[in-house]
């Protein structure tokens, strides 16, 4: 069993009239158990050069249980504020990652159509990093 920890901190000294400090720590485990996830794709980097759809995680090509506790991390490494990638889950738009933004979310991977994809806003070179933690 592996131990993988995800930690989140959201802070602001001036968004509200009082300081905001929000923290969460999660141990990434298999669905419904205390057993840590044991599989990862490792940190990957993808350079895009078109505004076409890029499939980051092709559900049908991955050997993994459906409807489990998989987790995905994606970051847009662009430094140009206007450049974004749109994340979709099975074709449904989740949101836009602008330059420097990251996302971390669970992935059900419930059927073969449940791919995780991105669509860049620009056809010039744009780089993202991504990683999947999953059950075996």
């Amino acid at each position, binding site marked *: 069993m592996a131990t993988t920890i995800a930690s989140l901190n*959201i*802070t602001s000294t001036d968004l509200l009239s009082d300081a905001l400090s929000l923290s969460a720590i999660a141990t990434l485990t298999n*669905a419904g*158990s205390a057993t840590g996830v044991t599989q990862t794709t490792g940190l990957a980097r993808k350079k895009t050069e078109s505004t076409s759809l890029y499939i980051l995680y092709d559900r049908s090509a991955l050997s993994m249980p459906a409807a489990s506790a998989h987790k995905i991390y994606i*970051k847009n490494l662009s430094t140009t504020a206007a450049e974004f990638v749109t994340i979709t889950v099975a074709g449904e738009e*989740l949101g836009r990652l602008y330059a*420097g933004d990251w996302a971390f979310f*669970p*992935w*059900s991977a419930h059927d073969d159509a449940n791919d995780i994809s991105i669509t860049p806003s620009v056809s010039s070179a744009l780089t993202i990093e991504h990683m999947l933690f999953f059950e075996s």
Partner: protein
Amino acid sequence: MATTASLTLASADIAGDPVSVSKTATLTKAGTINDLDQSTGLNRVHLRSTTNKTLLTANTEGNDLAAKVYIINKATDSSLYVTVTINAQTVGKLYAGNFMFIPWSQTDTAAAIEVAATNWTSSTGDIPVEYALFHEDTDFLTNA
């Protein structure tokens, strides 16, 4: 004004070499370096229904604007999870202690973020969920 979100992913033993990813994002308005300036604050609801409940109602004025959503399942029973959906598409399951932080497009009014305590029963007890939205100028209603 600046609101930052930092994520660390760390494991000493999930791979042959340690995994250590640490990233910080400053939450800005779409396509600019201007900071996001509005938030719902941290909300807490107790779910006791296996059917979807709307956590954040989509507002089409928010389409093409920047919005970030944080959701955490505060249950302590590892078997209890909430299913998160957008426009009826299941994104994933948040098990006890799990959190997510995502951008949210609000492409149309159907793009609400919904949650369901999918394996809740009257004997499991409520599943507490906390969430916050950071966004640009538009109105939001919550009715979980």
